[in-house]
């Protein structure tokens, strides 16, 4: 890794931290409610880091501490190598926060919101207006520029909110539940935007309640529940913690199912489950096993296969295995079907 351009620009002769975030034992208590209960995080620079947890797990509180909005009750944290207690100003110069609830002025128009941020970040009035126009254009909001934000749709608000975080390009961007409660199309747009930002070199810390989202976007995931990190790793690692993947086969002719089951049993060397669907079979594969031999064996036996899939356990299953309860909290019941629908 080359020297950090920010440090170079400031002429600070410090070797840059390879971590975007390093936190140890962060604690935050509200009254007698311990919102964050000893969180450890090591987030490498570059890429997307996902913090996954149900409502009330402590995601927002953790982010607010890292973004220097909230002082931790205990623990240490360095953001981009700077200490949250002693160097908050430097941290703020290099981060951007897109909060869970739109961090926008609802009474102002889209362009006014961006000019406001541009002025605060040091642009002249003309520069800020130009910057605002360019951002609105890029985020597909040019037509809504002069409309009050309170008249924006959920997806438009989200995009404007993210645009607001890009008035100057941050080293690290916090995105707190960026797709909660927006429609699938807007969600896809937000995903696109996030991927583009990462390609541009920004590190992204994203929180989400959606397992699919973390799986789709994040390079690494911390699963957080009741203010504690209960698992951490790549999506693949997390899934393998729960066991290997499941093989699903549907034969073209139900008559051939028994024969197929016998072939599979030999190929995977394990138990094959006959599903309710009279043409379907499933089998759990052992650690490190490959699905290709099974498919080859079926073909060899002359069995016509309609569908054949090998999938890793879903993060739903991961959550269930880690916490002993499903990840969904009651509050997001309304939002969940949208995601499920989009997944189909």
């Amino acid at each position, binding site marked *: 890794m080359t020297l950090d351009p920010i440090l170079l620009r400031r002429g600070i002769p410090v070797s840059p931290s390879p971590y975007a975030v390093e936190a140890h034992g962060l604690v935050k208590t509200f009254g007698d409610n311990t919102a964050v209960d000893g969180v450890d995080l090591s987030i490498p620079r570059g890429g997307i880091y996902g913090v996954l947890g149900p409502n009330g797990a402590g995601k927002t509180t953790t982010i607010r501490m890292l973004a220097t909005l909230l002082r931790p009750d205990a623990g240490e944290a360095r953001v981009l190598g700077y200490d949250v207690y002693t160097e908050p100003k430097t941290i703020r110069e290099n981060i951007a926060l897109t909060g869970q609830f739109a961090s926008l002025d609802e009474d102002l128009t889209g362009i006014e919101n961006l000019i406001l941020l541009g002025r*605060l*970040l040091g*642009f002249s009035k003309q520069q800020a207006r130009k910057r605002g126009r360019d951002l609105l254009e*890029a985020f*597909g909001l040019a037509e809504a520029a002069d409309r009050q934000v309170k008249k924006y749709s959920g997806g438009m608000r989200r995009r404007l909110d993210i645009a607001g975080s890009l008035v100057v390009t941050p080293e690290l961007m916090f995105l707190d539940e960026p797709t909660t409660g927006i429609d699938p199309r807007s969600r896809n747009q937000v995903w696109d935007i996030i991927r583009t930002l990462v390609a541009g070199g920004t590190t992204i810390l994203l929180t989400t309640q959606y397992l699919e989202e973390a799986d789709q976007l994040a390079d690494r995931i911390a699963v957080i529940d009741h203010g504690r990190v209960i698992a951490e790793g790549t999506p693949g690692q997390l899934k393998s913690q729960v066991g290997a993947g499941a093989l699903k086969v549907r034969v073209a002719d139900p008559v051939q199912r028994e024969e197929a089951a016998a072939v599979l049993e030999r190929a995977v060397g394990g138990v094959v489950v006959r599903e309710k669907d009279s043409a379907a079979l499933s089998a759990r594969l052992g650690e490190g096993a*490959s699905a290709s031999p099974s498919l080859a064996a079926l073909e060899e036996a002359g069995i016509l296969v309609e569908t054949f899939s090998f999938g890793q356990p879903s993060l739903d299953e991961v959550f269930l295995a880690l916490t002993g309860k499903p990840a969904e909290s009651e509050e997001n019941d309304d939002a969940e079907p949208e995601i499920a629908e989009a997944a189909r």
Partner: protein
Amino acid sequence: MSQNTDTPPLSQEHRDLPTSGAKAGAAGSGAAAEQVSAAGISAVLLPTDQRPTPSGALSGSVTFGWRAMLKIKHIPMQLFDVTIFPIMMTVMFTLIFGGAMGAVVSGSGETGGAAITEYVQFFIPGIFVQTLIMITMYTGLTLNKDISKGIFDRFRSLPTWRPAQLVGALLGDQVRYTLAGTIILTVGFIVGFRPDGGVSGVLAGFALLLVFSFCLSWVWTMVSLLMPTEEAVMGVSMTLIFPLTFASNIFVPTATMPGWLQPVVDANPVSVLVTAVRELMDGTYDAASIGLVALYCLVLVAVFAPISMYLYNRKS
């Protein structure tokens, strides 16, 4: 991990979401303006070496002041709310109570048109002060509303001078005070207010009132940072404002009150202010009264501004 690399073509089951780029493009029919392209976003990202230096205390405060003015532009009703009541008070006190009050104020015992005119001269500077003091409360309400929303976190995550949001709001409110004050004085003029101090006297009184309002606003800023809800802020502010404005010489001279109450009412900062404003508008300004107002202003800012800034920085 091995599974990941082993089975790329087959592991479709849980990865079967279409790549969002293609999907967003396909679904974008009829909404060309909403199109978001990766290329467009990449192009708009500002290279980190082109970041400007963040705004300082002054330009940050001025920017937040600009925001407050935009709010007046977008929600003029908030101005209407706070001026309609004083207009009603002015009309009511002059036309209905004016005769009786005037008889007392002038000491002539005569009621009617002349007494009303007499009372108007006494009352307008008073209601003028009361109106602006009432409006200062809205500074606290606005701030409390801001804090309960996500935008508060955004502002605090910026590398700017943090109190700029507070100072800027107070500066922006000066515009609101000026507008409201102008309305009251216009109504006053219509009902017969003809101050001896002339235009310069009125302007001097206005300026003094604006300074005081700015200083008093810090009290409401503190209240708004301490109270959990807008309603609570309103409740506390009202509880403070009513005695302050009514136990004063706004409506009647202190001399008409019971002896034990007079020193209390005279010490009320609002009475001190009203006296100074009356004198200025009368063209008979008195350094002692203005000095006393300045002293109150200094104390208000010295006490409440640091507390507010501390609370603002600590607010979670």
